[in-house]
Each structure stands twice: as structure tokens, then as C-alpha cells.
């Protein structure tokens, strides 16, 4: 062991957000101008919606700075199914996004293994370089 870092994740890649959405049963719609909430449509730059559930509220993706994004949504009434898919405070989506960035950013020559702790939901990704 030689170095350990704790990170605060920022959403910097739409491609990885798209992969993460797909992984948990959602889809990213690029250039969507509004997303659905209890209070009606709200402005956004892109949206993420639950596949196969047209009643679920949606997640708005806002480009706050160039190539830097924030997510907004409405969990009233559990978002009519949205929260069951993304988890509390969108934890499942955040976790899938983080994993997608890690897999995409590893230099050539690494093999990647994934392990999920079924009790805690913790995901461990291990990149091994021979």
C-alpha cells in the first residue's frame, strides 16, 4: 500500500452518466429542455428517466459550468417510482456513475474486478496491473 485518497465526486462526464443510468434501469435523454416533477415541468439541459415507467418523476441534469453538471429531482411520493430505482438521495445512480468513471479512466493494461457487498451495498472495484 502506498497512497490512499478520499474523493468528493463531481459529475463531469455525460457519457459516464449515460452508462450509469443504463446500468440501474434508467436512460439519459440529451438536450431535453424540461423534466417532470410534482410541481410540473422544470427547466434542464438533459434529463434522466426511469425505463418503462412513464408516471415516475424525472431527474433534471443542469450544466452548471462547462462539462460540470448537477442533478435535480423531486422525491415527493417517492417520485412515483423514481426513488425505488435511484435510491435515497440518488445513491444508486451516484454509485453507478462513480464506478463508470473509474472503469473509463483506468489506463490501458488494467483488468477490473467488481465485488458488491449485498448487505451494505458497498461496491469495490479493483484494477490490477500485471
Amino acid at each position: 500500500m502506498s497512497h490512499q485518497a478520499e474523493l468528493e465526486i463531481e459529475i463531469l462526464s455525460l457519457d459516464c452518466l449515460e452508462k450509469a443510468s443504463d446500468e440501474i434501469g434508467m436512460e439519459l435523454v440529451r438536450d431535453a429542455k424540461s423534466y417532470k416533477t410534482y410541481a410540473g415541468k422544470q427547466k434542464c439541459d438533459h434529463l434522466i428517466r426511469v425505463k418503462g415507467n412513464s408516471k415516475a418523476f424525472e431527474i433534471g441534469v443542469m450544466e452548471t459550468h462547462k462539462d460540470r453538471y448537477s442533478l435535480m429531482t423531486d422525491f415527493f411520493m417517492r417520485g412515483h417510482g423514481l426513488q425505488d430505482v435511484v435510491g435515497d438521495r440518488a445513491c444508486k445512480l451516484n454509485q453507478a456513475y462513480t464506478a463508470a468513471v473509474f472503469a473509463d479512466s483506468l489506463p490501458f493494461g488494467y483488468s477490473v474486478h467488481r465485488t458488491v457487498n449485498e448487505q451494505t451495498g458497498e461496491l469495490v472495484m479493483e484494477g490490477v496491473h500485471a
Partner: protein
Amino acid sequence: MHRIIFTIPLHGNPTLKVEGVKGTKCKDITSALEKALGKVVKDEATPDMNERPIHEQINQY
């Protein structure tokens, strides 16, 4: 052989750990990853980081 171990909890910040690299080369390995992921909020050197790589030790003789 070295390993990069990335632990992502459902809630809270993930941690990135490098094993099997002596010296400060581990920083080179993870800097691009850290940049792609976001902000480093805590960074700790572990004992291997203060050890010199083997080829440097050989050059001393």
C-alpha cells in the same frame, strides 16, 4: 504487479487506494483518476510511499 482499489459506498465518499507501488510513482498512477472523479478531500501517504523504489536503491552501490 500493483493494484488500485476503489471502494464506493452507497452513502458517503469513495476511497481510492494503491497497493504495491513504492515511492511517489503511485501519485502518477492515480492523478488522472482523481481528476476524472472529482475533488480529493483527504490524501494519506502510507508506508510504501516513503520507501525508495528498488532500482534507486541499487544505484546507490
